[in-house]
């Protein structure tokens, strides 16, 4: 969270917008988004046939546009959206458009401080990554871009791109490799059959992906260099948070899934399924969603699965800030449950969002949904009122307060509540 220390942690409650009025004022009001610091709420609104604007708190952008979509706040609080003017697309930031227009623009990404805004763009059927209005030059024509990431400091951009054109049903061309990774506009030397799971280390130094070498042969590439080992299948790699030379990924061997670090299998047990390996913040522990047997899902920490299992699925594990506890959201018999260190906490819900730990680990706070209303739940028990819309709670940097942003009776409130009160 950018500049979280300077957010307003003192005002107990601010009513920042009466979104119910938007419904009277505009033909249609789309789902709202809020800024990271909770100070702004915005919705795309329809003001007439082929005419849209964005309502932000009590105002709107000056100029309406034909189409607007993908409104997202950058971490520094500026509101971005993708808009059309005379049938061409571009980025608008706080209502002001980039000069360059594009055949298409999508997938907005931000640096951690929000100063850098990147997106995938297409001009004359050529694809590129555009960063703060400047499209990165690339020595080869990119035929498509599947996904892109930027480093937290915004200095490194990487994309999975099709670097070789393919004719219709060109099986040979495909198997020779037509996909690669483009880093700051420069493609890696080699092309691959397929490239998936693009990941960048926190320091932006290293880039890892999965690649497919032939029909049933997969591996991991780190800065173009493949691991020596190949596997029957892989899932997306993750970087150690402190040591960007350590990369871990689920790999499939002998009909089972294992966890491998830098090519070497590191957990003794194989699993029916293994997904979402996640390092603790200090990097000393790894947790992952695993199914030791078919349809029995749980979390394994450092290779040891919890004894409790869930019939439907389990999502990405989440470590407490000190790395001692692990929480995950699981689904069993149609209900979503919060699980912490192998024990279900509280009630079942219709939906649970990503858990947030209190600094001393004793509380796990989540946005939950029950009977069409949203609420804040602490350790799986509903603590705050029902909201029509609600965002994930944010704990203050000193760990004493929680910011809760939500819409009640059409009004958007930003509240700061002492952690001890919830």
């Amino acid at each position, binding site marked *: 969270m950018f500049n979280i220390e300077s957010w307003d942690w003192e005002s107990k409650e601010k009513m920042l917008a009466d979104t119910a009025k938007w419904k009277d004022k505009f*033909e249609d009001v789309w789902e709202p988004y809020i800024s990271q610091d909770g100070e702004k709420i915005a919705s795309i609104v329809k003001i007439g046939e082929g005419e849209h604007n964005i309502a932000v708190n009590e105002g709107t952008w000056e100029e309406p546009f034909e*189409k607007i979509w993908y409104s997202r706040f950058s971490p520094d609080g500026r509101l971005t959206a993708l808009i059309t003017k005379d049938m061409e697309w571009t980025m608008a930031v706080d209502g002001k458009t980039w000069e360059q227009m594009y055949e298409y623009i*999508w*997938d907005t990404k931000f640096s951690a401080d929000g100063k850098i805004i990147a997106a995938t763009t297409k001009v004359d059927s050529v694809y590129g990554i555009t960063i703060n209005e400047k499209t990165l030059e690339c020595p080869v024509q990119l035929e498509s871009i*599947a996904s892109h990431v930027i480093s937290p400091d915004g200095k490194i951009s990487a994309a999975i791109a099709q670097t070789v054109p393919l004719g219709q*049903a060109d099986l040979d061309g495909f198997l020779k490799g037509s996909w690669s990774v483009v880093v700051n506009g420069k493609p890696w030397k080699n092309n691959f059959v397929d490239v998936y799971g693009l990941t960048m280390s926190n320091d932006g130094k290293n880039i890892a992906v999965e690649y497919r070498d032939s*029909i049933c042969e997969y591996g991991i590439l780190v800065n173009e260099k493949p691991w020596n080992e190949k596997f029957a*299948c892989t899932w997306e790699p993750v970087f150690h948070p402190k040591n960007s030379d350590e990369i871990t990924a689920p790999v499939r061997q002998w009909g089972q899934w294992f966890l491998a670090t830098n090519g070497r299998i590191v957990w003794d047990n194989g699993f029916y399924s293994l997904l979402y390996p996640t390092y603790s913040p200090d990097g000393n522990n790894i947790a992952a969603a695993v199914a030791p047997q*078919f349809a029995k899902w749980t979390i394994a920490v450092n290779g040891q699965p919890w004894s409790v299992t869930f019939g439907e699925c389990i999502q990405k594990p989440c470590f407490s800030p000190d790395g001692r506890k692990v929480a995950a959201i699981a689904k069993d018999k149609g209900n979503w449950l919060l699980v912490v260190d192998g024990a279900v906490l509280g009630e079942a819900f219709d939906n649970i*969002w990503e858990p947030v730990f209190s600094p001393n680990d004793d509380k796990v706070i989540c946005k939950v949904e029950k009977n069409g209303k949203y609420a804040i739940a602490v350790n799986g028990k509903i603590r705050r009122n029902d909201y029509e819309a609600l965002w994930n709670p944010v704990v203050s940097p000193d760990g004493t307060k929680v910011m809760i942003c939500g819409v009640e009776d059409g009004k958007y409130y930003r509240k700061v509540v002492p952690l001890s009160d919830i």
Partner: protein
Amino acid sequence: MKPTIVKREPVVDEAMDQCEARLTEEEIEKVINEVIDKETGGRLWTYINTCIHCGLCAEACHWYLSNDRDVSFAPVTKIKDTLWVMLEKKGKVDAAFIKRCSQISHTECNACRRCGMYCPFGIDIAYMILVVRRICAKLGMVPLYLQDTVHSHAATMNQMWVKPDEWIDTLQWQEEEAQGYVPSARLPLEKEGAEIMYSVIGPEPKFLAQLLGNITVIMKVAGLDWTMPATAGWDNSNMAMYSGDFEIMARVERLHHETAQRLKVKKIVMGECGHAFRGAEYDGPTWMGWMKPPIPIVHAIAFYYDLIKSGRIKIAKKIEGPITSQYPCNVIRNAGLGSKLRYIMSAVCEDFVDLIPNDRHAFCCNAGGGTINCGPPWKKIRVQSAKLQSENFKRTGAHTIVTPCHNCHSGVEDIVDGYKLGMHVKFFSELLIEAMEIPEHLKPKEE
């Protein structure tokens, strides 16, 4: 074992011919034994050891029945000529044999599972056919156009090489089209927390974009809270399941189901496609280790049934004249939606003429199971082997055949064309759009 007498016109499939020239016997032996030993188990051996070679399954198969009861098309022959030989010879077979295995398993069987209903032991021939396809796929012996479709899945996570921007652009264009009928209609992209994620198969944005406009109107009239993803994961189809490339199948299914989880929806509603339902409901989740999809998936037939039955969609004027419907194997025989299909057909058609045989016993359109994706080289024999179903259609006297499945749609169009039936082929949603009531307050205002 007596060899089967096989009479076929030669077919040139470049990919298979090149693969035949490339494959070594060592490679073949290794892959066959690997798949048999490591990827199959009790199910395969129970089927192999239980079959008494009685041939009763033959009478179930439209390939056999449409080709003058040529025994080389009988279900049990398809296993006799592939797996039995592989097992007997412990994988010591040559490339020409593997090519014939691909021809049988990919191009002459729809994995429709009708034969399993007629076998006294319920032996699932289609499962064994998929084992054969798996061996072929690992060896790279897959018909050209089917393999190309699988490459599209692998590279783009959709069936039709649709690029990410083309997908979003098409949805935005279809939203505008829908607003021509219902000005307040919206196709909400990436709406986290919506009730429904609607997913479709690749050909919709590529060739049949109006179906996306239709659903936008239907959702608005029904007053539903829905969304579509603006990322990969929107395509619910899966030809990798049918080529035998299960790793790509799983990757596609994982993304589809994780997209629904990311969007925090309560259910996925999918468009009219049968094999896509099978992949998303059963094969994909099973490979991933999920008992069922983490977010439940509802096929279009069940979805429209609920809308009509609950009165959320009212029928203003039924479509006139005799209309029949194909029963897509993967959602009727294999998922039991037959009575719901008849209900919705009767609700929108003045004169719904049922097929005989119908429901679970209905015959495959002969496009399913990936056979139509094998492409032009294999079209002639496919259409020729749909003769029986062409006669069933003709007997209904219908002016239109409804196909609540994309593969059926293309396959039935080929049948109508090949046998000069002079019938229209439509998706159910196309009928519904014509027949449904658009409430006054949603209609465009008169200028």
